[in-house]
């Protein structure tokens, strides 16, 4: 008797509390359904010069996917991919955000978008049980490239399982046109089995707490940006990469072997640095890099904390095709022996 009354009252109170936060956004804005893209793709650049109400519909999905050849992992995702779907809006837009949690999810999820000004970045408003849906709205006040992630307890585990992605808020004046845009996001993963150990690998809480990842990868899997999956461009094209880092633990020393970034929008903000070799991408942070692919070749995306690249998977390829330009880069011009040190008299002497 007493138990029932207590719970019913708690329920009623919770219902009443839920009324307080209903938004009152202006309704005159044109309504646009957001184009969402799976990595490495990016929604097309925004042509609009005026604000809109942008409706974003994202679903959290838990699914087994390959993290490395022959190795699978139960990823938790936004939209079925790691990183989650790319969201692109314009400064001044009102974003109506719908979060669905798949019926076969085993835990609740939510979303904290770093582009949101407001409690929990939306996490509080999107506490979503399996088979349920939630909604909230926010105004994109400040331009920039922002990380979003799940903030459901245990937060670290949700992020470690792949629940992160990027949302771009374009400045009112728009962004310079480029020929190619790519979406690349690094993450560290912790499995009970060693690197390369086959089969479905469970999450290792111990390794996560110790910050000893088994895998450090771009776009959720070793090989997601190599071979047939390599990023592709033509020599002479301008390229913009939206580079995020989901963590949960490591910061990334992002570098492309054989390229110099013309511009780096440091930490995804409004100011850029020029002529950069390696840029730091914090966990829960992002950066935009721009460069021209001057010459053809395979350019290698790495976390220049370099053991991660060769032993944990953080390696991607940008394959640039086109005419060689020997004024910029010749390739090997000569190879051969050079003259030995004069006389062999020096053995054992100093």
């Amino acid at each position: 008797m007493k138990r029932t009354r207590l719970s019913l009252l708690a329920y009623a109170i919770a219902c009443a509390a839920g009324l307080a936060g209903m938004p009152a956004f202006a309704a005159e804005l044109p309504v646009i359904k957001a184009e969402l893209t799976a990595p490495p793709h990016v929604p097309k650049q925004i042509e609009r010069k005026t604000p809109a109400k942008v409706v974003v519909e994202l679903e959290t999905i838990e699914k087994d996917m390959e993290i490395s050849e022959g190795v699978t992992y139960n990823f938790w995702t936004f939209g079925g991919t790691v990183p989650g779907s790319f969201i692109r809006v314009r400064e001044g837009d009102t974003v109506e955000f719908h979060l669905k949690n798949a019926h076969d999810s085993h835990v609740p999820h939510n979303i904290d978008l770093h582009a949101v000004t407001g409690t929990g970045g939306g996490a509080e408003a999107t506490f979503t049980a399996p088979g349920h849906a939630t909604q909230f709205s926010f105004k994109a006040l400040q331009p920039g490239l922002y990380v979003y992630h799940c903030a459901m307890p245990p937060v670290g585990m949700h992020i470690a399982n792949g629940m992160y992605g990027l949302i771009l808020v374009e400045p009112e004046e728009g962004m310079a046109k480029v020929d190619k845009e790519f979406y690349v996001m690094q993450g560290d993963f912790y499995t009970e089995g060693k690197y390369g150990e086959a089969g479905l690998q469970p999450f290792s809480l111990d390794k996560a707490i110790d910050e000893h990842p088994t895998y450090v990868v771009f776009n959720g899997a070793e090989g997601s940006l190599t071979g047939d999956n390599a990023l592709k461009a033509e020599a002479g094209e301008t390229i913009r990469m939206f580079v995020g880092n989901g963590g949960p633990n490591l910061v990334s020393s992002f570098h492309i072997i054989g390229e110099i970034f013309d511009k780096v929008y440091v930490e995804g903000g409004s100011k850029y640095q020029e002529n950069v070799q390696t840029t730091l991408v914090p966990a829960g942070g992002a950066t935009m890099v721009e460069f021209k692919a001057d010459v053809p070749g395979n350019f290698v995306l790495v976390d220049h904390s370099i053991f991660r690249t060769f032993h944990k998977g953080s390696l991607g390829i940008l394959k640039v095709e086109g005419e060689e330009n020997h004024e910029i880069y010749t390739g090997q011009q000569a190879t051969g022996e050079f003259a030995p040190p004069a006389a062999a008299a020096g053995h054992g002497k100093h």
Partner: protein
Amino acid sequence: MIRTAAPRTLLCLALLAALPPALSAGQAAAAPDQPAAGEYLPLAGGDFRSSLRLDDAIGPRHVAPFQLMREPVSNRQFEAFLAKEPRWRRDRIARVFADNGYLAHWASADAAGTDEAADAPVRHVSWFVADAYCRSQGARLPDWLEWEFAAAADATRHDAREDRAWRMRLVADGSPRAIDAAADAPANAYGIRNLHGRQWEWVGDYSTLMAGSDKRGQDDGDRLRFCGATALSFTDREDYAVLKRVALLSALQSNATLGNLGFRCAKDPP
């Protein structure tokens, strides 16, 4: 699917209006000799260190002796309950007591059908319905503390939580990879089965699990829901299995149903 403000208000009002009938229904339902009743096993209780720090209490809390069902309530048992109390059938229940998912996976309103094993734990049931079921048995839902007490045991130890390796495996609770999801998973040291299975279980006082008392709407907020403040009310911040369970339960309203949420009943010793 989305509740906007107005329907939500109506729901709350409807619920408040339904409060007295719900209570009287509960009383009328008390019938101790349910033929399809599950088997109850006795637990002696005692001092117990909860993983949740409730009401700023430090140190162990006392668990009074109680009895707990050996298995979660099954589809077969739940069919028997509906035959006896048909007002809880999915086609007759009020939405305030169970959402649209309530037993929606069953073949018909009174039978699980062949896609769902008769002995498998029932799922897609709300707190209200689980509460009514237990009352119909002259029982009740276990409190969180009772559930946690029973679930601290592995196959050989009454409190196996110091065994870190075992505890880490509980991180898969509520999923097909849970340790008790295996067909040959042994009973725990109390003889109780499937506490760490592929399904979560309702507890009677689930709505009070948020960081002490129910803090919803108060100025210190829902500590559980925010990034960076999640471990404040846990005595062991590495106990992710408990953290996940509490996060799930606290996401729910009492009429919610999930595909991986069932229940079992408890009662006081005779």
